[in-house]
C-alpha cells in the first residue's frame, strides 16, 4: 500500500521502562523507496538493540534524527511519503544546524557524538505563529484506533508490562482489543515491534508549545572537556553500556548485597548428563548443560522459598506462584550483557529449560530478543563459571531479591565415607554455587537453607521427577 500522505516514523516504546533510544544506523537514506515492514533503521536502548520496520510503503522523504543521537520515545525520527516536511508540525525542518546558536552548541559538545543536530531542528521548526495543524484528534477511535486504549487493555498492559502500541490491533481502526493483547501476551512478543503510531505530540499541546515532536534529549551527559593523555583512546558508551552502568549502581544503592556460597558434589548430575546428552542432542537438538540442571533444581527449590523469588515493593513484600528465570548472557562482541527471561519456568521440565535457555541465549547473542523477553524476571542465574572461576559476588537484577551464581565444575579431592563408614579421599566433580541476596528481605539463615536444599536436589538428582 503506497502512501500518499506523510507517515511519521517515531522512536518506538521498547517496553514500559524504556524512555529513550539511540539511532544506531539508518538502513535507508533520504529519497529511497521502502516497503511497509521493511527494516528502516536500527536502534539501541538500554534493554535491547533492534531494527525498526517501516510503518508504511513509500519514499523516505526525510531523516530527522541522525545516527548516534538519543531521543525520547515518541520522537519523530523520519517521514515516509508526502513532501519533505509537509506533515503539519514539521514544516521546513532543515536537518542540518543552521543557526548561530546551533553552531555554538555543536562546538560545546565537540568530542561527543553529533547529538545536537535535532535540537536545532526543533528551533528551526518552530514557526512564529503556530499554524492550525491538520493532525487528527489523538483519541479518535474511528480514524486512528490504535491511539485509543480501552480500560481493560490498559489494565492488562500494565499488569503484564506490555506496551499496547506493540500489539497488532484487530479492532475498529486498528484498535488493540482485549483479545489482541491477551493473545499477544500468550504468544509472546513478535520479533520486532512495529514503529508505533504514537499520537503526534503537538496535536495535544497548547498553542505555545514547540511545534516539533518531543524534543530530543541532549544525548549522554556532555563529557566535559575530554582531554586525552598520550596513548589513551576514546569510544562512546553504547546505550546498553549506559543502561548496565546505571542499573549496577542503582542495584548496589538499593539492595543490601550479601553473598553465601556452597559446594555441590555434581557426580550424580555429571553421570545423568552424560547419559542424557546423546539422547537430547539426537532427539531434540538440545544440549542439557549443567546450567539447565541447576536452573531446574533452582526453580524447584524456589517453590519453598517464596521470598527469594520475591521483591520488596514499597512497604510490601511481593511473592508469586511462578518463576520467571533470568539468565545473564554475554553478547558476542564481549561488550555487553543482557538478561533474557525464561517466563514461567515452573512449568518446564529439564528438557524444557534446556531448550528455553538455548533459545534465549542464542537470540540474545543474535540481538533478536524482544523487549518483553528481557523484562519481568523474578530471579536470575549468572554463570561466570565457563571461564573457570570458582567464586563471585554478582549484583542483583533489580527489583529482584537474589541472584544465583554458578561456577566451574572442577575435579577435587573430596572426603567421603566408604562402604565401612571410613573416611576416604575420592575425586569428585565439585561446583560452587553462590547466592547473592538482598539482606533487607532475605536473612542469612534463609539463604543458607535455600542453598542447602538446592545442593541436596542436585546431589540426589531425581531423574523421574525432573
Amino acid at each position, binding site marked *: 500500500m503506497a502512501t500518499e500522505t506523510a507517515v511519521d516514523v517515531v522512536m518506538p516504546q521498547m517496553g514500559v521502562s524504556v524512555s529513550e533510544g539511540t539511532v544506531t544506523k539508518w538502513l535507508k537514506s533520504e529519497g529511497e523507496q521502502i516497503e511497509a515492514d521493511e527494516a528502516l533503521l536500527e536502534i539501541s536502548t538500554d534493554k535491547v538493540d533492534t531494527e525498526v520496520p517501516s510503518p508504511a510503503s513509500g519514499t523516505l522523504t526525510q531523516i530527522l534524527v541522525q545516527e548516534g543521537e538519543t531521543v525520547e520515545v515518541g520522537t519523530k525520527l523520519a517521514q515516509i511519503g508526502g513532501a519533505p516536511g509537509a506533515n503539519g508540525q514539521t514544516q521546513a525542518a532543515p536537518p542540518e544546524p543552521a543557526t548561530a546558536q546551533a553552531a555554538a552548541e555543536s562546538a560545546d559538545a565537540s568530542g561527543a557524538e553529533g547529538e545536537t543536530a535535532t535540537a536545532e531542528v526543533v528551533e528551526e521548526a518552530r514557526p512564529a505563529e503556530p499554524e492550525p495543524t491538520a493532525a487528527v484528534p489523538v483519541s479518535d477511535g474511528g480514524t486512528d484506533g490504535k491511539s485509543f486504549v*480501552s*480500560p*481493560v487493555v490498559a*489494565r492488562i498492559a500494565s499488569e503484564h508490562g506490555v506496551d499496547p502500541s506493540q500489539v497488532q490491533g484487530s479492532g475498529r481502526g486498528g484498535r488493540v*482489543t482485549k483479545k489482541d493483547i491477551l493473545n499477544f501476551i500468550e504468544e509472546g512478543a513478535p520479533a520486532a515491534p512495529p514503529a508505533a503510531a504514537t499520537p503526534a505530540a503537538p496535536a495535544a499541546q497548547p498553542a505555545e508549545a514547540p511545534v516539533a515532536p518531543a524534543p530530543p534529549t541532549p544525548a549522554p551527559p556532555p563529557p566535559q572537556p575530554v582531554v586525552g593523555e598520550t596513548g589513551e583512546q576514546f569510544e562512546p558508551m553504547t546505550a546498553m553500556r549506559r543502561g548496565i552502568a546505571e542499573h549496577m549502581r542503582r542495584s548496589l544503592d538499593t539492595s543490601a548485597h550479601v553473598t553465601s556460597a556452597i559446594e555441590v558434589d555434581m557426580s550424580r548430575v555429571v553421570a545423568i548428563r552424560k547419559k542424557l546428552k546423546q539422547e537430547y542432542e539426537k532427539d531434540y537438538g538440545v544440549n542439557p548443560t549443567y546450567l539447565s540442571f541447576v536452573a531446574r533444581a533452582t526453580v524447584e527449590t524456589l517453590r519453598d522459598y517464596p521470598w527469594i523469588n520475591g521483591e520488596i515493593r514499597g512497604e510490601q513484600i511481593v511473592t508469586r506462584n511462578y518463576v520467571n528465570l533470568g539468565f545473564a548472557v554475554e553478547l558476542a562482541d564481549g561488550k555487553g550483557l543482557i538478561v533474557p527471561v525464561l517466563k514461567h519456568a515452573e512449568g518446564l521440565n529439564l528438557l524444557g529449560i534446556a531448550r528455553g535457555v538455548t533459545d534465549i541465549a542464542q537470540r540474545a547473542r543474535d540481538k533478536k530478543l524482544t523487549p518483553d523477553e528481557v523484562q519481568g524476571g523474578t530471579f536470575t542465574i549468572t554463570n561466570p563459571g565457563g571461564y573457570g572461576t570458582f567464586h563471585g559476588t554478582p549484583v542483583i537484577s533489580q527489583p529482584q531479591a537474589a541472584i544465583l551464581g554458578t561456577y566451574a565444575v572442577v575435579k577435587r579431592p573430596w572426603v567421603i565415607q566408604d562402604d565401612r563408614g571410613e573416611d576416604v579421599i575420592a575425586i569428585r566433580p565439585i561446583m560452587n554455587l553462590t547466592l547473592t541476596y538482598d539482606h533487607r528481605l532475605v536473612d542469612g539463615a534463609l539463604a543458607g537453607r535455600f542453598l542447602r536444599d538446592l545442593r541436596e536436589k542436585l546431589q540426589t538428582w531425581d531423574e523421574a521427577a525432573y
Partner: protein
Amino acid sequence: LAEKTYLQAISDGLREEMRRDKRVFVIGEDVGVYGGAFKVTLGFQEEFGAWRVIDAPLSETAIVGGCTGAAIMGMRPVAEMQFADFISCAWDHLVTVAAKQRWRAGTPVPITVRLPSGGGFSGGPFHSQNPESSFAHIPGLKVICPATPEDAKGLLASAIQDPNPCLYFEHKHLYRRIKAEVPDERYETPFGKARVHQEGDDLSIITWGAMVYTAEEAAQQLDADGVSVEILDLRTLVPWDKQAVLESARKTSKVLVLHEDTHTGGFGGEIAATIAEEAFEDLDAPVKRITAPDTPVPFSPQLEKAFIPQVDDVVAGLRDLAEY
C-alpha cells in the same frame, strides 16, 4: 416435569399457592366468571369460590387499595391488572402506601400484582407497555420479570410468599409462544439471582422478559460469525443480580443491555452505569443499550416493529460491539 406454556405455568403456580395457603386470594377485572382476560385464572372460581377469586369493578385503584388493606390484615392477595398499562391508576396506593407501609408503620404488605405487559401484537399505546423501570425506582417494591415457564412458576411462588409488595410482569407475547419443561412439584425461584440463558466468551447481553428470546436469536446469527455471546436473564430487577452482571462484564469486556421498555430512565441505564462504575477497568468497549425509543407504543405493525427491538437490531448492535 411436563411441557407447559408460560401462561400455564403462571396459572399452575397460582393455583398451587392458593391450594397450600388459604391466605392467598385473587382479585381483578374479569378474573372470576370469565377466567381472566388471558385465561390465567380459568376454572379458579369453580375450585376456590367467589370469595377467593373476586371479580372487581373497573377500578385499579380499588383493586390495589383493597389488596393493600387485606395484606396489612394478614392476607396474601394477588391482584391482576388486566393490562400492565392500567397500573398507573393504582400508582398512589402502590407507591405511597404499599411501598412505604413497612418503613412507616412496621407492617408488611405482602401483595403480588400480576401485570400482563409487553407488545408485539399491535396492542397500541394502552396495551403494550413495559413499565417496570418506573417501579424499579421506588424503594419498597420488588420487580419481577420472568422469561421462562419454569421461572414464571417459581418466581410467582416467591412473590406470593414475599413479605413485600411484588410487581410481577408477565410478558403477554410469551404466554402461548413459549413452551418448556416445568417441574411438577412446588418450588420457589429466588429473587436477585440472574439466570445464564446461554454461556459465551466474547460479548454479553444483559436482558430480561421477552427480550431473552430476541437476544437468543440474535446470538445464533453471531455464532455463525464465530462470535460467542453470553446471555444473562436478570429474572428480577429489584433486587437485581449485580454480581452476575459484573462477572459477565469482566469476562467478555463488551456488554449490550437490551430491554423492551423505552430508553430514557429505562433500567438498562442503571445496569450500564453500574458496569461503568464497578467494572470500568474491565471494559473493552462502551456499554451499549438497545431499547425501545422514547415514544408511546405505536399501533401500526410496521411502526411497532420499528419500536420494539428486533432480532436484526440486536444483531447489528452485537456486530458493532464485536468489531469495536
